[in-house]
């Protein structure tokens, strides 16, 4: 038998997910899992699950986990961390969850500098509920509640999480990444590692926004979705590290 040079992370249970083909939620869980494994903290990790397409992740996380109400993951994570200060808390949130209904909890937890790591799957849409407009939906992008495309005069402008959170004093790491090719996947993993290392070191709050896809509600193939991230989303949501403090 040969040497395993790439194996499925033990962070994931041995079962298929309900995610649509090509959806990046799964990829994000996987990268986080690999990072937690590499950091050797799986045995004290907790996944804090938000409501969005990733809500059923309680079936995938192979560590203790808690499924939150829509938008409230940062508050719940605050409670978890208050009770278990040595646990490593991985929040996974969508844009409806993090930037609309849960915006207060997001900003407030960041403002308090909770020692948690937030992974923000920004796919510009409400996946779970069938493709409604999100705060992040691009101008002109069609969604089921803006069937003619988002019109800034009626629906406002795309909201930028990293830029907003970077105005706060407490956060240690605020970054935006993408996954459309191998260099970006590697970069994302590096940043995730830093984000969780911050938590292990009790430095405080880290926020990693990942430009994500929703092939189903974008009505695009997985490949075309990745291209869309590169060509359209990135323009509005520039990649980069907005804050990185020690």
């Amino acid at each position: 038998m040969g040497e395993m040079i790439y194996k499925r992370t033990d962070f994931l249970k041995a079962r298929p997910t309900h995610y649509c083909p090509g959806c990046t939620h799964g990829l994000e869980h996987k990268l986080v899992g690999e990072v937690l494994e590499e950091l050797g903290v799986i045995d004290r990790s907790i996944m804090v699950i938000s409501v969005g397409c990733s809500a059923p992740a309680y079936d995938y996380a192979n560590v203790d986990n808690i499924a939150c109400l829509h938008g409230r993951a940062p508050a719940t994570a605050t409670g978890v961390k208050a009770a278990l200060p040595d646990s490593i808390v991985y929040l996974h949130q969508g844009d409806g969850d993090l930037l609309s209904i849960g915006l207060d909890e997001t900003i407030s937890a960041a403002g308090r500098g909770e020692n948690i790591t937030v992974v923000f799957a920004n796919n510009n849409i409400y996946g779970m509920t069938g493709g409604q407009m999100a705060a992040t939906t691009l101008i002109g992008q069609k969604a089921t509640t803006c069937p003619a495309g988002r019109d800034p005069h009626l629906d406002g402008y795309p909201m930028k999480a990293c830029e907003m959170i970077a105005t706060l004093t407490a956060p240690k790491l605020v970054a935006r990444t993408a996954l459309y090719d191998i260099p970006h996947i590697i970069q994302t993993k590096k940043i995730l590692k830093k984000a969780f290392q911050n938590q292990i070191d009790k430095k405080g709050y880290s926020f990693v926004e990942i430009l994500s896809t929703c092939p189903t509600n974008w009505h695009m193939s997985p490949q075309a979705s990745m291209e869309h991230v590169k060509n359209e989303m990135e323009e509005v949501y520039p990649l980069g590290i907005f804050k990185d403090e020690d």
Partner: protein
Amino acid sequence: MFIVKVNPDYCKGCGLCIDLCPKHIMAMTGKINDKGMDLAECAKPEDCIGCKSCAMTCPDAAITIEKQ
């Protein structure tokens, strides 16, 4: 020599691995699983350079790679 295995329970035929394989050796099998999902495979294992791109990009963690 690298053995690229695609787990048919996990693979959903999204094709992302096919896109990112620098050797263009990932391909659809033409088979589908019982949820109607297409399945990918490494069509020319002998050409594989073990770069792991396919595995890294797979959203469903369906790919494992073994070096032999």
